[in-house]
């Protein structure tokens, strides 16, 4: 029993990490249909900037704020310098741009920062909390809470605000969006700022658990991508559920079957789900008619 509980807590922790990354994908995807493969780098920047700002003497909360703001600014710059000039390019080209950006950011990070592994102290100490015979670190609660908060915020944004609707409209039909007076460039800028900010926030939250270094981005982006697809790309609910589910799958497989093939099990489940639900769990079906 306590074993199962431990697996669940472990899965929830890891799942929340994936969910945070997956949530970061949603906004840019919703605005442009582009899966931003540099999303993992935003997470890395959040962690690394906090580490270095903290080391430079800033108190942790301030360092974290600096990291989120700086990363958002970088997101905006990415949009202005690389995505906007390529307007009208096919989606694959935009994806290659984001891959290029991720390589670029990683290359810059190893110069600006270093290639060491870093972490900073957990926000509220390292004394594990005990739940039904299992333990969880307080920082995990921060991560899980962070994922929930971001989810709720995004969900409200997309369903309750006109701006959120404008984001969806932009990806659905850019031309029409302009015709109804939406500044699509601004929507893109906003999306990149928000996505990058969420990514950085994820980095800040998870670093005390997972540690960080200049190259943690790829692996995170990959898992986050898988989680987002499992849940249905573009839907915050999908990102949250997909992330947590992926984390649970991994830890339960590691616990009960084989730790070696836990990633395999996760992907097999994803394949299975997509077989029956080709749009993921909560993905919206395209409603275009012929």
């Amino acid at each position, binding site marked *: 029993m306590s074993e199962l509980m431990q697996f669940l807590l472990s899965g929830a*922790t890891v799942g929340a990490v994936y969910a945070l990354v997956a949530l970061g994908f949603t906004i840019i995807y919703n605005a442009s249909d582009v899966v931003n493969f540099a999303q993992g780098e935003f997470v890395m920047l959040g962690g690394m900037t906090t580490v270095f700002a903290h080391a430079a003497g800033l108190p942790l909360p301030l360092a974290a704020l600096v990291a989120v703001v700086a990363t958002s600014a970088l997101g905006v710059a990415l949009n202005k310098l690389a995505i906007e000039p390529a307007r009208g390019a096919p989606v694959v080209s935009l994806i290659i741009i984001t891959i290029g950006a991720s390589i670029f950011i990683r290359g810059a990070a190893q110069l600006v920062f270093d290639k060491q592994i870093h972490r900073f102290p957990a926000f509220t100490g390292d004394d594990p909390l005990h739940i039904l015979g299992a333990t969880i670190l307080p920082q995990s609660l921060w991560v899980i809470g962070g994922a929930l908060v971001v989810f709720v915020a995004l969900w409200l944004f997309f369903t309750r605000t006109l701006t959120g609707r404008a984001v969806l409209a932009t990806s659905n039909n850019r031309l029409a969006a302009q015709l109804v007076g939406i500044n699509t460039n601004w929507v893109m800028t906003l999306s990149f700022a928000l996505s990058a900010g969420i990514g950085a926030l994820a980095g800040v939250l998870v670093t005390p658990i997972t540690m960080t270094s200049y190259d943690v981005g790829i692996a995170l982006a990959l898992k986050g991508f898988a989680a987002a697809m499992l849940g249905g790309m573009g839907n915050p609910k999908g990102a949250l559920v997909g992330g947590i589910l992926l984390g649970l799958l991994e830890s339960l497989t590691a616990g009960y079957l084989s730790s070696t093939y*836990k990633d395999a099990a996760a992907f097999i489940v994803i394949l299975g789900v997509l077989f029956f639900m080709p749009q993921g769990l909560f993905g919206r079906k395209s409603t275009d008619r012929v």
Partner: protein
Amino acid sequence: DIKIGATVSATGPASFLGDPEAKTLEMLVEELNAAGGINGEKVELVLYDDGGDPNKARTFATRLVEDDEVVAIIGGSTTGTTMSIISVAEDAEVPFISLAGAVEIIEPVKPFTFKTPHTDRMACEKIFEDMQKRGFTKVGMISGTDGFGASMQAQCKSVVGNYGIEIVADETYDPKDADMTAQLTNIKGADGIQAVLNPGFGQGPSIVTRNYKQLAIDLPLYQSHGVASDGFIELAGADAAEGVRLPGTALLIADILPEDDAQKPVVTAYKAAFEAKTGTPVGTFGGYAHDAFLILKDAITRAGSAEPAAIRDAIEATSGLVGTTGVYTMSPENHLGLDLSAFRMLEIKGGKWTIVE
């Protein structure tokens, strides 16, 4: 000028290895040239970053021998990159000193291939020796699935029987995993388990150590030489790392080595220089590059020539050369030249490395 080539994994998944190696080589060449070079000739280092990709490593090795026409190659941070360089060096008859762990690199012996790190089998032996001394007979393993962890896991399993020890739990994790409590919960629950060994490098072992503490597992934890660096204590936290043992080199304990230890001056000098130059703590891996360069320098000096064949012969004749990793004595049958004594069993106490016994 004497052209020496190097290809290391300064970026990519193995940059923990390659980055300090690259920095060490650059630093040493600078130092050497400032001191007048070898036999009056300056040394030029041609350094490539293969990013941990064996295919790239082979291309760079080809480039080094065919295009840059170097007299020797240092590198191959990982076993994978090393293995793909070997045939290039052997075909071109250029001496090659690898910085990777696996035994296969030098077993069977190939004429031009050498290596500086201990083999992972030696690390296993050192650890099991210590476990045997403490009377453990049932232990668990949790290994990274990267080349380092997987290779050491396999080596350990092949020698563990010699020590009357049984592996009662065998778990793995992906090097990028964020949490290993699931695996550790299983290990914790294994029957009669007395100690746990964690082969791996990167952040994985730090996370394992922290999760170990979180789960309040009350058994001795052994790490591998893969994390032998002050950075590990910092990442895992002194609290969680308390009592962790691992086989390390003299480098880590430069300041507490007895004055009469032959390695003391070598490791102290390297540690001071490296930390001053890079601002990051020394680790075992930079030491491997240091020793490779040392062996090469020594060989060229003794050979009095920078011909690849002459250098090869001189490397094979290395004897009693004191490096950071240990004291090297090579022979036609032994292209590593280290023995178990090079490893020292270390334990973390109060956030510091101490020597066991």
